[in-house]
Structures are given as C-alpha cells and as structure tokens.
C-alpha cells in the first residue's frame, strides 16, 4: 500500500515539475484601436487580476489622451481659443513627452498636426487631397512651439494650434501598463505580451519559449499578416509606423496618414515602414513617425547619433537596421522569399 501511495505522489510530482504557467488574456477596444493584454503568472486568478487591471488602466487613460471625447482635457484645450487650461497629471505628462520628442526630432514628430490630418480626412468618408491654399493655411497653425507648458498642469495653445496626442497615446498607455505590471505581487505577472494597436510591449519571461524571450514579427508592408523579419526582445516595446494601413487613393496615387509637418503632405521619403525597439514605448511611438518623415539616410544618421534601434523598410524592398538594433534585440531577416533584401 505504501508503495502505491509513493507512486501516486511521484506521478503528480513528476507531472507537476513539467507544469506550465497560468495565463489570462483580455481583448478590448480602446483609443480607436484593438488591444490585447496577455499576462502569465503562477496562477490564473492573479494573472486575470493583472490583465484586467491593465485594461482598466488603458481605459482610464483614454480621456486624458483623446481629442475627440468632449469630456477630455484635449478637447477642452483645443476649444479654448488660446486661453490657459488646467489639465490632469496624465495629460500634462503626455504633452510634456510629446514636446520633448518634437524637440529631439527637430519637429519631424509634431503633436500639433491635427489641422492637417483633419483637412485630409484620412480614414473618414471625406478623405481627399486638399487644395494647396487649404494646406498652406493649415500649416500656419502647425508647430510644437505653439504649445506653452506653464507648470502646475496649465497649458496654453497659441496661434490657433490644435493638440493631438495620437502619435504617442498608445506608447504612453503601454508604458503605464508596464509600470502597473511591475507593481503586481510577486508571481502574479511573471510575463506579459501587451498589444495596444501597433504598439507591442513584451515584458518579463515568455513561458512558451526556451530562453523566455518574445519574438515579434515585423510586418510585410505588402501583406501585413505576414512578416519579413523578427526581433527577439524582453522588457522592451516594439512599435511600427507604416503607409499601408491608413490611406486612401486618388487618381491612382496613394496618400497615407504620416504627414510631413514641413510640406503638409504625406511623407514621401521612399519608406514603407519604420519599426523602433525601445524600453520606452512613448519614445518608440514618436520616433517611428519622426524617422518615417526623415527618410532613410537622415533617419539612420539620427539613429546613430541618438543610439536608437530601428528597422527601415523601403519602397524598393530593402530592409535596413540601425547599429543599435544588435545591442537591444536579436534581429533575424526573413524576407528573402517575399522579395526583400537585407541591406546591411
């Protein structure tokens, strides 16, 4: 009898050794996009609590970052006719970050592009190429220098400027989720894969892979269900901006949603997409846009100067990586069969 009892213990002991981590995934819509948070932990209850807390955090941030919700700080600010507005801590922090990255990129990323994006109407029924006079007029209101951060959460917009934090909103939310996950009780969130629209956050250990890293595919601009390279990361965010999701065509020409603040037209720099790998998702978010606007040569030079890890895909199917890529992730080129060239 003792032998059978011992055998029973051994059986479950052996099976338990090979046991897996519990996980919980929550999918939801927020910030005008689809989001998914998968949390891995020691048990399902705590993983669920952590995942739901992440979803709540994102939903709580939405009013702080939206410019369309009438109850939002940005709506108030954009309709204040230049008056000083009091905003929340989160909104103020996000505006500060946006201005910081606008300065860093010399305005290639600019959070005051709203008059232009509204004018072009991309992803609306009204999408069209505006008249040059309209573009010129809209450009007179564009420029991050019009944002006055006055301290004590007070902000003022000069010169008819309109603020849009869409360029960093999902990155800002990814960073908030990252902070929240780090605050979970030990074992509750040993790993997490956070997908907030085009922003991916890969945190902690991936229990499904030897070595515990997360493998993120860089989308093929011609077929974005597929990928042309992978980056293997841990505790990092990967963000892509491309010309292939939000666009319209007029007279046989494609007009996408990444605008050049200098011309008022979609950036036409021979790039299809830029992906940035960075611990800070807000920074990665702003930089993908900025690097796309800068173009390949200026973008690579900017990355070298600022130690930024970025993957550039050009219209002629060349894939370039900045020097910093090899220091923050394992990069694998996989695009040969799809006609891409590894241009290292």
């Amino acid at each position, binding site marked *: 009898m003792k*032998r*059978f009892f011992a*055998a029973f213990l*051994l*059986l*479950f002991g*052996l*099976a338990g050794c*090979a*046991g*897996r981590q519990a*996980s919980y995934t929550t*999918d*939801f*819509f927020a910030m*005008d*996009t*689809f989001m*998914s948070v998968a949390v891995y932990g020691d048990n399902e209850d705590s993983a669920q609590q952590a995942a739901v807390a992440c979803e709540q955090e994102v939903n709580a941030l939405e009013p702080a970052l939206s410019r369309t919700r009438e109850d939002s700080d940005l709506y108030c600010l954009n309709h204040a006719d230049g008056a000083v507005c009091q905003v929340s801590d989160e909104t103020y922090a996000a505006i500060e970050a946006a201005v910081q990255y606008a300065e860093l990129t010399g305005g290639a990323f600019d959070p005051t592009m709203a008059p232009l994006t509204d004018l072009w109407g991309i*992803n*609306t*029924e009204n999408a069209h190429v505006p008249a040059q006079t309209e573009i010129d007029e809209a450009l007179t209101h564009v420029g991050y220098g019009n944002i006055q951060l006055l301290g004590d959460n007070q902000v003022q917009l000069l010169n008819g400027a309109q603020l849009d934090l869409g360029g960093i909103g999902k990155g800002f939310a990814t960073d908030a989720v990252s902070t929240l996950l780090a605050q979970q009780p030990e074992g509750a969130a040993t790993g997490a*894969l956070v*997908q907030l629209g*085009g*922003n*991916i956050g*890969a945190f902690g250990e*991936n229990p*499904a*892979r030897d070595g515990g890293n*997360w*493998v*993120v*595919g*860089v*989308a093929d601009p011609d*077929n*974005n*269900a*597929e*990928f042309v390279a*992978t980056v293997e990361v841990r505790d990092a965010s*990967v*963000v*892509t901006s*491309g010309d*292939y*999701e*939000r666009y319209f065509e007029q007279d046989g020409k494609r007009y996408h949603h990444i605008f050049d603040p200098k011309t008022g037209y979609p950036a036409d720099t021979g790039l299809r*997409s830029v*992906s940035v790998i960075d611990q800070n998702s807000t920074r990665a978010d702003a930089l993908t846009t900025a690097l796309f606007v800068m173009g390949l040569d200026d973008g690579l030079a900017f990355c070298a100067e600022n130690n930024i890890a970025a993957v550039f895909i050009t219209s002629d199917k060349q894939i370039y990586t900045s020097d910093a890529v090899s220091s923050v992730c394992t990069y694998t080129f996989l695009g040969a069969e799809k006609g891409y060239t590894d241009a290292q």
Partner: protein
Amino acid sequence: MRSRLKWGDFVIIGVVLALAAALTAVLAAGTTGDRLYAEVWQDNQLVERVALTDGTDRTIDLDGHNVIVLSGKSARMESADCRDQVCVRTGTLTRAGQVAVCLPNRVVLKIVGETGEIDAIVS
C-alpha cells in the same frame, strides 16, 4: 536494513513514468495546445472558435457585415462593409499571433494555439 527492489517495483516505476509523461502532455496541451484555432470575436464576445485542420472549409457570415473564410489551416476576412477595409487588406492568417481587426464593426479574427515562429506581429 538493506532492501532490494523487486520486479514488481520496476513495473510500478515504469507505469508511473509513463503516466507522468502522459499527464504532462495533457497539461501542456491545455491552453497553448498543439493545434491552431481561429477565433471570431464581435463586440468583445467570442462568436466562434474553430479548429483549423487540413479539412477545414467554413464561411462565417456576421449578418453580411463581415464574411470570414476558414480554409484548411488558414483564415481570412473575405469581405467587410466597413469604409477602411483594413481587415480585408490584412490578408490570410496562418499562424498563432496573427490578427485581422475590423475596427468600425468591432470584429476581430485571430489565430491562437500552438506556439510558432512569432508571438505577435507589429504593424
């Protein structure tokens, strides 16, 4: 006192190891699984979860708003009545981690299951 293993002990040890291996396989197959599934979500509700096998051949019509085709070990948003067509442009999904999203209709087609080359695609 020195004890010796008898032949019956070896049988028990063998049976235990075999059962442990089987139990481990069952546990490991629990959530990640060794198969691919297509999940169709609408308004955050799971509408369908279909195992993708070589013989899969199904069309899921969400009241004419979105039509999803499951064919073999692949799935795609065949058509959608939305303006932007981002979901249709996403193309054919064949790996766990791939997602096609129709934001206007709040419909999500995702592939889940066996761990493949990637955990997610950034686009």
